[in-house]
């Protein structure tokens, strides 16, 4: 099962004694931290490095495995207090919180931080606040609209109240996002704030070069560990070097000499070739951390396009798919787990196993051919599969050719339409131009069923002139109603069970073919201790890492 592999992730340091303070942690990354403005970051905590600088109202529980999928308080004293129907959420700030310059953090700073994320200049963040807050859809940000957002109330310096348009039981998850980071209005420089964002966390930015390619973080003296139970902050200094080639990063971590012995990566997986290598080297294998992040790669159908309007065709394809070759194309069984459900295989999401169209390990072409005949295509069928040319092993040519090959056995000739990532996205996110058959993927904004299923299957989230993720353009009143109902629940366990059931139900319609869930395998340097990999992010949490 996925949980226990996650829990055992990272074992090397443990033997070498307890983690100590001090030293420099090197982070070797491929992508630069081009966005370092809390308003523009998308994910919970803004990912790994930003979460060392930005504190938010709530945050991820920094524990390995499934425990890591929980929300815990950060700046706030608790994970939020909802009113009865979960349309109003109140938070109280801890005492003694300070910015890096020593000024106290107030609820007004958090309100301002959220408000500025509505400015067009600072776009890029997650859409939830815009959709959920009263008046959020019309608000233009503090630069254009000086009055501010009335639905965020700060009765005193430590209290902040959010008024929502509808019940949102998962609000505490949203409060982990960096939009909830305090930003002192006096130090806001708009679009250039990201060059030196003001820290509220254990480290501050002392160097930011080449648009986030080279970052140096040092201790923020005004951060008080007593107010922060989550971040361990062992190293004295964090040195982030990005813009590196993935193969080189892995090679450096494997060699692990000099500064690289105290290095980790937050964005680079081991590739298949490197895995093959690691497999034959015990010492190296001990330094590999394994993680699971809620993510599904799938084939999307657009039933508005023939012949995918015919459920039998969609089912035939579901039967024909050879998940072994798809998984191999994604890097083999160590890097991908075959998927028959849309939801990732984690309790937090509400995973409920099902396999409506059992294709076995390698597909069932006979069954598929049979269905095709029934659907009126006795001589097979020719379809075009849209995919991207990015080398990401998710929507990339490797996966597409594996699909092509498997469907070929069932008499379905697949033509490939590979496009540059931009034009690929533009096409698959369009309601008007979306093709009938394409590769797609979806990842959770937080570990719960809501952000996983709602954008994909909620009929009211079909966006006609923007980015649409409801590829099947499913607008089923029953599904919509069930989503609303679950959102009202503040009991996340109960909600999870119902998301799982909903997933299973939608799955019957064969609106997509789940292909696989990725697994993250990452190397750490020899000196790295206390490797914690949660199922929330699937990668090691650098706020826990020690190099001494």
């Amino acid at each position, binding site marked *: 099962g996925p949980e226990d592999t996650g829990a055992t992730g990272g074992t090397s340091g443990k033997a070498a004694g307890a983690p100590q303070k001090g030293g420099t942690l090197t982070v070797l990354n491929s992508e630069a931290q081009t966005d370092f403005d809390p308003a523009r970051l998308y994910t919970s905590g803004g990912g790994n490095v930003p979460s060392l600088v930005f504190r938010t109202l709530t945050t991820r529980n920094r524990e390995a495995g499934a425990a890591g999928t929980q929300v815990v308080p950060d700046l706030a004293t608790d994970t939020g207090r909802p009113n009865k129907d979960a349309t109003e959420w109140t938070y109280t700030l801890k005492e003694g919180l300070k910015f890096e310059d020593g000024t106290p953090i107030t609820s007004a700073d958090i309100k301002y931080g959220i408000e500025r994320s509505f400015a067009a200049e600072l776009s890029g963040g997650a859409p939830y606040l815009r959709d959920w807050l009263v008046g959020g859809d019309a608000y233009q940000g503090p630069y254009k609209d000086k009055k501010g957002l009335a639905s965020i109330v700060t009765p005193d310096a430590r209290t902040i109240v959010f008024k929502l348009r509808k019940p949102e039981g998962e609000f505490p998850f949203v409060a982990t996002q960096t939009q909830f980071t305090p930003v002192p209005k006096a130090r806001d420089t708009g679009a250039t704030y990201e060059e030196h964002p003001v820290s509220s966390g254990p480290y501050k930015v002392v160097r930011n070069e080449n648009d986030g390619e080279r970052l140096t973080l040092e201790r923020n003296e005004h951060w008080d560990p007593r107010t922060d139970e989550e971040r361990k902050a062992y190293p004295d200094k964090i040195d982030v070097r990005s813009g590196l080639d993935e*193969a080189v990063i892995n090679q450096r971590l494997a060699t692990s000499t000099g500064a690289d012995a105290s290095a980790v990566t937050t964005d680079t997986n081991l*590739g*298949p*070739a*490197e*895995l*093959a*290598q690691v*497999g034959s080297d015990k010492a190296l294998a001990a330094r590999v951390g394994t993680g699971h992040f809620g993510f599904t790669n799938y084939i999307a159908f657009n039933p508005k396009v023939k012949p995918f309007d015919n459920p039998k065709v969609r089912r035939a394809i579901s039967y024909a798919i*050879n998940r*072994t*070759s798809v*998984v*191999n*194309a994604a*890097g*083999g*069984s*160590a*890097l991908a787990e075959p998927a028959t459900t849309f939801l990732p295989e984690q309790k937090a999401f509400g995973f409920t196993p099902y396999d409506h169209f059992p294709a076995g390990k*390698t597909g069932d072409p006979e069954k598929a051919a049979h269905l095709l005949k029934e659907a009126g295509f006795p001589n097979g069928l020719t379809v075009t599969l849209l995919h991207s*040319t*990015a*080398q990401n092993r998710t929507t990339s*040519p*490797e996966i*597409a*050719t*594996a699909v*092509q*090959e*498997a469907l070929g056995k069932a008499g379905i000739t697949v033509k*490939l*339409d*590979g*496009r*540059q990532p931009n*034009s690929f996205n533009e096409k698959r996110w369009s309601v008007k131009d979306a093709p009938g058959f394409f590769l797609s993927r979806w990842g959770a904004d937080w570990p719960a069923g809501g952000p996983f299923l709602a954008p994909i299957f909620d009929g009211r989230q079909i966006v006609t002139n923007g980015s649409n993720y409801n590829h099947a353009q499913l607008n089923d009143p029953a599904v919509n109603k069930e989503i609303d109902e679950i959102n009202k629940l503040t009991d996340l366990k109960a909600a999870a069970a119902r998301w799982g059931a909903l997933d299973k139900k939608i799955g019957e319609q064969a609106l997509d073919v789940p292909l696989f869930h990725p697994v993250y395998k990452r190397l750490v340097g020899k000196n790295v201790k206390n490797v914690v990999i949660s199922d929330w992010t699937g990668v090691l949490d650098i706020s826990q890492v020690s190099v001494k």
Partner: protein
Amino acid sequence: MTALTDTTTPVAGLPATGAARQVWRRLRTRPAALVSAAVLLLLVLLALGAPLLAALEGQDANTYHDDLVDSARGGVPYGAFGGASADHWLGVEPGTGRDLFVRLLHGARISLLVAVGATAVQILIGVLVGLATGLGNRWIDGVLGRVTDVLVALPMLVLAVALTAVVPRGFPRPLLLILVIGFLGWAGTSRIVRAQTLTLKSLDFVAASRLAGSGPWRTARRELLPSLAAPVITYAAILVPTNIVVEASLSFLGVGVTPPTPSWGQMLSTAQTWFRADPAYVLLPAGLLFVTVLAFTVLGDAVRTALDPREASRLRVGTRKEAS
């Protein structure tokens, strides 16, 4: 009245063929040239005969063999030397288990086609532009020189990305690659030709040709081209492999040939990280590429030498001496 009675009977036929025949005669005496020509010919034949050979082996380029790769270890082929066996002579591709022998052969088609095609375009345009800038007046030199600058400065990738997106999908991708690489890559040739032309045009035999009433075009063809042939052929021989590598780099950046069509470039770019886990996968395309490079270089060198009548007389005697 002549000092020496010359018993040489002139070669009959057109003078052009006469010269060509002489070149051929000189080439024939060089074993290295013949071997490399044979190697290239063999490669072309292998590429052309790929379907036949595939049938002989009983495999095809796109069939997956999931059972031949170890999924738990990143899809590395089972067995030694990339899973080579009686069924799969050169082993299989990691991750998919597709037959490498057949993919290499099919890859040769695209790679050779693109590389040779692009080189031809580059040389053709480069020589024409180089001659025009070298021989033409200030105005022509200025304008064409600046056009060359624009093309050198225009990153190939920008154009490749823009074009692969704009050109209709039905347009054959190899042809597109030939055009993109060809039209952006002639600057080197044109600069070399220009430089040589500037030096050559001050020589008396060019003056003599002007006196004969030849226009610039004729002078270029009759007097300059034979002297330009040496650097151009040398450069062309090195352009062919460079273009294969350019195709590989474009593949690496996602604008190469469309899958599942194999090309050496595409194979090399996916093989990048495999050289420890599955050396065969890297060595095969790299080795073939190397052989091609070597063959083109040696042949280019031999042709270059054979084109020079001064060199030839000395070579012949050399070989004769060895024989005696």
